[in-house]
């Protein structure tokens, strides 16, 4: 059927207007899309669109927890074999059990910890990749280093930690003592000229890189590797080992009695930093962090945290027995095959 000319013109104009409207809409959307993330964030704050990490833990009935495979006695002891299979124990393991018990009560279904025993340096990486819900390994929050950016920390579960030092040779101890006695010697200059070992990626390592310039820095894969290097007749001699003071103090009391803590006058341990230890989580794990903070608060208030500290740091015990009775099983498949305490090498950044 033929259409009158005027009407055809009107139809044509309408079509053009329609196309123009569509184009404008697309342009508008393109501009708005850039702010979509912010929009979703804003909506999520008002009404959560997805479940939070705590709900996810409940749904899975598992919590993925990381721990350092390198022993940080008494926080983490070496893995041993027990009547129940491979187990790991220590103050941190007991804390994980307490958190898991609280998760079970919260979720109303049993929640089991799936423990990943990995190298300390890999814990941050795995957390970043979302493979862990959190990790525990005597970690001090607030270490000023790019390597520690983007993580969140729970309330402290261990107080009065920090970086300390141990020495083996009496002449080195005397040298440090005489520097300590001399007025005005800054803490950072106490170890000048000495050869010092640290475990890679730990707070002590980051501290030494940032503050202890005139020392010869030996970076080791683990503390036992530092001791092995120090004992070896062929390797570079090690004058001082610095690390977490409670760990070093425990070692000189139990397994490395040939070493001693560097102390100040009055026999108080010398510390280079003061720190408390916290559980490490992803920055956006708000719900889980609230939950863990609450568990730590309850443990503190009930005195249980103090009891834990006492039984792991001061009581006399042998850890294999504790591993048998209260140790945690771990994911054998994810543990580094043929765990090796590793070796030491001179820092390349100096």
């Amino acid at each position, binding site marked *: 059927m033929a259409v009158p000319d005027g009407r055809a013109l009107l139809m044509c104009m309408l079509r053009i207007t329609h196309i123009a409207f569509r184009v404008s809409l697309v342009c508008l959307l393109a501009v708005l899309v850039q702010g979509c993330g912010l929009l979703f964030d804003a909506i999520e704050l008002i009404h959560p669109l997805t479940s939070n990490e705590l709900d996810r833990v409940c749904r899975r009935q598992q919590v993925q927890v990381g721990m350092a495979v390198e022993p940080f006695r008494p926080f983490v002891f070496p893995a*041993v*074999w027990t*009547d129940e299979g*491979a187990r790991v124990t220590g103050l941190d393991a007991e804390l994980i059990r307490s958190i898991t018990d609280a998760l079970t009560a919260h979720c109303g279904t049993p929640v089991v910890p799936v423990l990943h025993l990995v190298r300390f340096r890999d814990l941050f990486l795995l957390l970043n990749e979302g493979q862990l819900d959190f990790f525990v390994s005597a970690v001090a929050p607030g270490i000023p280093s790019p390597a520690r950016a983007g993580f969140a920390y729970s309330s402290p579960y261990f107080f009065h930690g920090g970086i300390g030092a141990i020495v083996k040779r009496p002449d080195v101890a005397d040298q440090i003592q005489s520097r300590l006695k001399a007025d005005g010697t800054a803490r950072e200059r106490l170890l000048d000229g000495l050869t010092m070992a640290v475990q890679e990626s730990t707070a002590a390592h980051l501290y030494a890189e940032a503050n202890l310039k005139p020392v010869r820095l030996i970076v080791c894969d683990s503390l036992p590797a530092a001791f092995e290097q120090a004992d070896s007749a062929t390797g570079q001699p090690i004058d001082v080992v610095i690390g977490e003071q409670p760990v070093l103090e425990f070692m000189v009391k139990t397994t490395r009695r040939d070493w001693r803590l560097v102390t100040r006058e009055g026999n108080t341990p010398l510390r280079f930093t003061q720190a408390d230890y916290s559980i490490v989580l992803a920055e956006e794990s708000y719900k889980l962090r609230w939950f863990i903070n609450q568990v730590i608060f309850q443990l503190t208030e009930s005195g249980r945290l103090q009891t834990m500290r006492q039984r792991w740091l001061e009581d006399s*015990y*042998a850890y294999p027995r504790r591993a048998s009775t209260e140790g945690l099983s771990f994911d054998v498949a994810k543990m580094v095959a043929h*765990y090796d305490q590793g070796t030491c090498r001179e820092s390349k950044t100096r």
Partner: protein
Amino acid sequence: MRLRLLPWLGLLLMGFAPISGLASPPEQLRAEAEETARLLAKLLQSGRLVIEHHQTVIDDPHRGDKGFTPEFFEQQLREEFRQRTGIDLASLSQKPVTFGVPPLARELLPALIEASKEVVRDAQVVINQRGIGYKNFIPATYGSQAAARFSKRSHVQLKQTAIQPRNPKNEADEYESSVLRWLSGRPNGEAYVSELTESGKTLRVMMPIYYLQECLACHGEPKGEWDISGYPREGAREGDLAGAISVRIPLDPKSP
């Protein structure tokens, strides 16, 4: 036949257990079950000895990969078992049933070997740690796990037990306690105890374990002082009764 090494021992216990001998199953069934139980106990004991012989390697802090692989362990286990029983497990499948190893044992011995290898496989991450000396991978902890894994998959129950075990799960039941008490007053030897219980429905066999010189570092003197694993030493002497391997075989195939 080794099965009848000390027939008086079995008879003595038969007399002292009130429920024994009420309903005897066919003699052949019992004899087969008894031999199977004896061989299973011997195999677990052999595994314990293999761990014992390699304890120094396992606890060597200077070596990472110890080479104590499941395959190596299996080879050692078969050899130890052959020395103790004269049975070569490798050629068992080629031998006729009349060879002397009952069909039930032919089925269960490989299952126990598999469970034992699994334990060694799972323990690799612990065994191969370098820089760590004592790892608690000892005959007792190997035996507990191997027995538990085997029992889970079989109608035969295998367990290590003692009068005062370190592991509460190895606590002796009433029957085991009475046998252990009876054994502790007697000189050690190659004897084992076999008895029908539950109106003849279950055969129970107990193979005693005696302390060797190597065990005394943890179980010897001074009594009460902690050993390396944190347990008080028992103050035992070489040849004292350490405990027993307890085997429980239902003779009624319908029973669980």
